[in-house]
C-alpha cells in the first residue's frame, strides 16, 4: 500500500477563524493522513520553512478573512525561492468564486470553498500527493 500523504495545514496572516481548519485536520487524520497543523497567525515564511523541514506532500492554507490572494502569492513565491516549488499548495475557506481562476493562475493547485464535501478534498489531496511522489 502506498504511503499516506503528509499535509501541512496553516492559517496564514492574522485571520482568527480556525474552527474549520481544525475540523479539516481531524477529518484528514481520520482518513489516515499525517497532518501537521501549525495554528493561527502564521507568517508565510514559517509555513514554507515548516513545509520544507517536515518534507510534506501538500500544503493546505485556510483563509476566511479575505487575505487569500496576498498570502497565496507570498507562500508560492517563498516556496519557489527556497527551491520547493514541487510542493503543491491548496487553499480552502471563504472566498469569492471570482478569485478561483486568479488563485489557479498564481499556482494554487486546488481550491475548496466552504461547503466542499470532505470526500472531494481528500481525493484531491491524495491525487496531488501521489503526483508528487511519482516525480521524486
Amino acid at each position, binding site marked *: 500500500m502506498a504511503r499516506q500523504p503528509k499535509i501541512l495545514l496553516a492559517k496564514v*496572516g*492574522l*485571520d*482568527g*477563524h*480556525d*474552527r*474549520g481548519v*481544525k*475540523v479539516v485536520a*481531524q*477529518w484528514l487524520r481520520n482518513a489516515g493522513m499525517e497532518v501537521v497543523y501549525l495554528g*493561527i*497567525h502564521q*507568517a508565510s515564511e514559517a509555513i514554507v520553512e515548516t513545509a520544507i523541514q517536515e518534507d510534506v506532500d501538500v500544503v493546505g492554507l485556510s483563509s476566511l*478573512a*479575505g*487575505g487569500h490572494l*496576498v*498570502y497565496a502569492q*507570498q507562500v508560492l513565491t517563498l516556496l519557489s525561492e527556497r527551491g520547493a516549488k514541487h510542493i503543491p499548495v491548496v487553499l480552502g475557506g*471563504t*472566498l*469569492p*468564486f*471570482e478569485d*478561483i481562476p486568479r488563485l489557479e493562475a498564481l499556482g494554487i493547485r486546488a481550491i475548496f*470553498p*466552504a*461547503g466542499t*464535501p*470532505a470526500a472531494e478534498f481528500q481525493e484531491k489531496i491524495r491525487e496531488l500527493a501521489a503526483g508528487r511522489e511519482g516525480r521524486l
Partner: protein
Amino acid sequence: MASNQSNGGDELLKAYFQKLERPSTWSGLPTKPVYSPADVSGLDYGRDLNDPGEFPYARGVHADMYRGRLWTRREVCGFGSARDTNQRLRFQIAQGVSGLSVINDNNGSLTIDADHPMAVAEGGVQGVSVSSLRDMEDLFAEIPIDKVSVAFDISGLDCIAWMAMYAAMAENRGVDLAALRGTVQNDTLHFQFCGYGNSCPVDLGLKSSVDIIEFCTRRMPRWYTGNANLYDMRENGLTAPQEVAFGLSLAIAYIQKALERGLDVDEVAPRRAFYCSCHIDLFEEVAKLRAARRMWARLMRDRFGAKDPRSLQFRFGVHTAGVSLYPQQPLNNAIRVAYEALAAVLAGAQSIHCCSYDEPIGLPTETSQTLALRTQQILAYETGAARVADPLGGSWYVESLTNQIEEKALQIMDEIEQRGGMVGAIESGWILNEIESAALRRQTEIETGEKVVVGANAFRTERETSTPGGIHEAPAGQGEALAAAVRELRRSRDNRRVAEALRDLHAQALSGERVNLVPSLIEAARSYATVGEMMGTVRIAYGQPYDPMGVLAAPRL
C-alpha cells in the same frame, strides 16, 4: 443529481414520497409529531411566563413590545479606510437603517496599527482600519453621533481604545458624553476561543472590560457597556442550550468583576445586553431566546439580588447565523436569512443584523447589504410579524421546547459553575474543548447528510463561477495606503504631547487594577496616539509584550 429520464422516474417517485427524516431539532433535541396541553401541564402562567414586561419576562422585556419601538435595524459595516466605511454608513442611513454597527479589521482586533509589519496585508480587509482618533473622526464624519445609536462590533482590547477615541471625538465636537447612545460588545473573554486570545490575556481583558463598564456607568448612561457574545460561540457549532448557558455564564463573569470593583448590581445590569445568534431552526431559536429571558431574570434576582426591573431583563441583539450560509447557490442564503430574522422578531429581539447573501463569499456589496436591510424592513412593515408581543407564546410545542432548552442550559451552567465559572472553564481549556467537539459534530452531521443543506449537500449544481450582484473588491495597494497614512500621522502630530499622554497612561496603568484607564486613554487618543501605542503601553504595564505579535519592541517612554 440524476435525471428522471435515465432512471425511469424512480427519483420522481422517491421525491413524491419523501418524508421528514430528521425529527430532532438542529441542536438534537427530540420532538414529537404533535403537542398538546399535556406537554406543558406543569407550566404556571404567572410564575413561568407572565405578560410581556413582567417578571420573569419570558414573553418579552416590554409590555408593548414593537408597538413601543421596533427593533433597531442595523447592518454590520466595515471595510477599507475609515472614509470608505463612512461613505457606506451614510449610504445605509439613506436606505433607512435605524442604527449603525461598525466592525474593525484583524489589525484592529489585535490592537496593532495599520503600519505594523504584519498589518499591511490585512489593512481594511475584514473590517475598517482604525489606528487613531484621526480615523475615528473620518469614520463618523457628518454623522450626528448625538442622535444615532452605534454598535461597536468589537471585543478585545480594541474596545477600550475605541471607547476612548469615540469619547474624545464627541468631546472635541462639543457633544455631551451622556447623550451618546450605543453598544460596545466588550466581551474580552470570548476572544480566548475566537482566534485572538494572544492579544487579549484573560486578566487584562477583564480589567479593561470593567473599566468600560465603570466609565460608562458614571459618564455615558445611555450606552450599553457590553454584550455577551453568544453569537460567535454558536457559530462554532454549539447547540442552542449551550449557546444560552455559555452566554449567561459569560455575562455573570463580567457582572461579578464589576461588583468586585465596587459597582452595584443595579448600576451595572441595566446596561448589559446580549448578542445572540438566530440559526436556521425557526422554533428552536424562538424557544431558545424565550428560555434565556426567563433564566436571566431569575438568575439576576435570586443570585445577585437585583431589584431594578431593567437588571432582570435579557435584552438582545441578533446576528443571523453566518455559519448557516453557504457559498454554493448563494441566493439561497437570502431565504435563510429571512427565516432567521423572522425568528428574531418572533422572539422579541431589540436589534437585528441580517447577514448578506454573500456572507460566506466575502464582505457585502452595497447591493447585497441593501437586500439584507430590505429583509428587515419587509419584516417590520409588511409581514405583520411585529404586530403582537410573543406571538408563539402559549403554543404547546414552543412552550415545551422552551422548557427543554432551559432545563439543558441550566445543567450546563451548573457544570460551568463547578469548573470555576466561565473564567475557570476557559482557563482549564474545557470551553475550547466543548466548542471544538461541537464544531466537529456539526460538520460531521452535514458531511454525512444527517443535516440537509440545500445546494451544499443536497440539490447540488455545478460550481458557480461568479457571485450574483458582484463581489466586494479592495482596491490594489489598500494596505500600503493605510500604512502610509499612519506613518504620516506619526510625523505630523505633536509627538511631545503624545509621549506625555502615554507616560501618564503608563503611570496610571501601573497604579493598580482599580484605577480606571479610560480617562487617560481619552487624553492619549486626543493627542493622536495610535491604538497600538495606547494598548502597547497598557500591555507592558501589565507584564505583557508591547506588541501582541512579538515583532515591535516597546519604545522608550
